[in-house]
């Protein structure tokens, strides 16, 4: 019997092994935005709460880089990142919020309870800004240059270790 008879079986076993290995690997659920390096799409959002102005894409073109934070009062990780946004604000970052499918009273309650690091919050009931910018969930934070270009995307809640990275990206965006 020729050894070559075993080749198909070996190939099949190799395929099974590959499939078994891939099944044990964690699924990559992060969808990165392809809009990095491109201009912020046009938007003009109503204020999400009475105490703050709304947000428009034109606000981002005054030469000053900003953080664009996509969040919602119903989002639990957004509570976890609130202190980090506060720290970023204290370090000099200007943070513009976009509240996804949120009610003004819920936004106000969230800010009262978890602090308000925002300079402005726009209300996005149709996820229009979110879809326009290539964001697939809350929270996500984008660094926008002073000319309104998307420079960096942070997916998920901002942890302590992400604060210096975001500050650095913000500094780079200002150059």
């Amino acid at each position, binding site marked *: 019997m020729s050894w070559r008879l075993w080749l198909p079986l070996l190939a099949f076993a190799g395929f099974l092994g590959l499939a078994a290995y891939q099944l044990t690997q964690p699924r990559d*659920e992060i*969808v*990165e*935005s*392809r*809009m990095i390096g491109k201009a912020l799409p046009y938007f003009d959002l109503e204020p999400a709460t009475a105490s703050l102005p709304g947000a428009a894409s034109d606000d981002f073109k005054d030469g000053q880089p900003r953080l664009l934070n996509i969040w*919602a009062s*119903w*989002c*639990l990780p957004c509570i976890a990142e609130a202190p980090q946004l506060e720290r970023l604000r204290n370090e000099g970052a200007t943070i513009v919020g976009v509240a996804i*499918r*949120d*009610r003004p009273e*819920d936004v106000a309650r969230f800010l009262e309870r978890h602090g308000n690091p925002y300079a402005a919050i726009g209300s996005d*009931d*149709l*996820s*229009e800004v*979110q*879809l*326009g*910018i*290539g964001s*697939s*969930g809350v929270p996500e934070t984008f660094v926008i240059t002073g000319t309104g270009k998307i420079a960096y995307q942070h997916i998920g809640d901002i942890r302590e270790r992400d604060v210096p990275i975001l500050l650095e990206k913000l500094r780079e965006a200002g150059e």
Partner: protein
Amino acid sequence: MRSLCLSLVLALFAFAPLAAQQSVPPAPFAYRQLDNPGEEALAQELMETLRCLTCQSQSIADSDAPMAGDMRHQVRIRIAAGESPEEIRSWLMQRYGDYVSYRPEVSATTWPLFAVPVLILIAALAIFRRRFARRA
């Protein structure tokens, strides 16, 4: 019966964050079909091949996630405004990459999927030819 009630109550609590996402009414065209049946058919066909981003194993036509509703709204208003389904697909792919589309695309990473079956077929034909040639 009691355990059923209990599990229903527990289920309600489990879905509380989802319920909170829906405190704002869904986008106008998330669940409403377009008046023009031809346009609605185009929209429906496209929606079945677009992936929901928050519930990644479903199409936006199948998903009740609020974000899928917002994507259906985008698809329907853009179709109604005269955009073609492929324009809308490429608009989304410019933002989310191949990921958002279920329609197979030949690209730098996916070409082996298309090339390997062709190669196997050619190899199989070659083997058959050799075998039959020998017998003849």
